[in-house]
């Protein structure tokens, strides 16, 4: 039963992912533009993904004031 529930949940996350892909891919059709779709994270909820993989923080860094680099 637990497996059935887990499987059901993963299937729902997968469906949510495909909706996100359609939304994200709608922004640009340029050939080089980013493509979004099924990958190894597609059966994770956004919260699971964030909790597992997005754990970095940044300390405020001073604005760069070095030499302007001429092209």
């Amino acid at each position, binding site marked *: 039963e637990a497996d059935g529930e887990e499987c059901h949940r993963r299937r729902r996350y997968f469906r949510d992912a495909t909706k996100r892909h359609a939304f*994200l891919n709608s922004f640009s059709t340029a050939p080089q533009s980013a493509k979004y779709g099924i*990958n190894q994270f597609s059966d994770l909820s*956004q919260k699971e993904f964030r*909790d597992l993989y997005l754990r*970095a*923080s940044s300390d405020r860094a001073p604005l760069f004031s*070095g030499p302007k*680099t001429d092209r």
Partner: protein
Amino acid sequence: LPAKFDWRDRAAVAPVQNQLACGSCWAFSVVGAVQSAHAIGGSHVELLSVQQVLDCSFKNEGCNGGSPSRALNWLKQTGVKLVPQSEYPYKAKSGICHFFSQSHDGVSVKSFTAHDFGGQEEAMMGQLLERGPLTAVVDAVSWQDYQGGIIQHHCSSQWSNHAVLVVGYDATGDIPHWIVQNSWGTTWGNEGYVYIKIGGNVCGIADSVAAVFL
């Protein structure tokens, strides 16, 4: 500035790693920058221990997260030498710090710089050339679904949550972009890499950028 530059072409970038189910991206980006600086300084690219940074950088929280600049500050303050990965392999979970004698071989960080290059991504290109691969902290929420190509839209710069290594840029095509090494294995993105449009601080790529000096 050359129109295209990639430190991988100079054998100064280690292979893509996989952090697995551990929030250790901050340690991977720091060790990646140290490995590259070491290679640029005349050695070959040698895999150094991410687990050592994960376990010993006490102002960070191991698999629960951390910041590249705090880790670099710890390396600079303590003079800890990063040992080869083979001596202190990655376990994808936080553990007890292993200490090594000062005479033990390793790579130490003399200093580092950290800057906000917002609005100055061209200067960031110059920094990349002068200093080698740079650590950066980005908003990677939309990267859960990324498959490849150049990210231009819908990647905010409001919330920093992931650390990566900027290894190059390519301004030869229609969309100038950064070449960024991630730590989610080679099956993700462009064989482990993500391309981010240059200009407009897409994904917050320019917000918190650090360069390492050995």
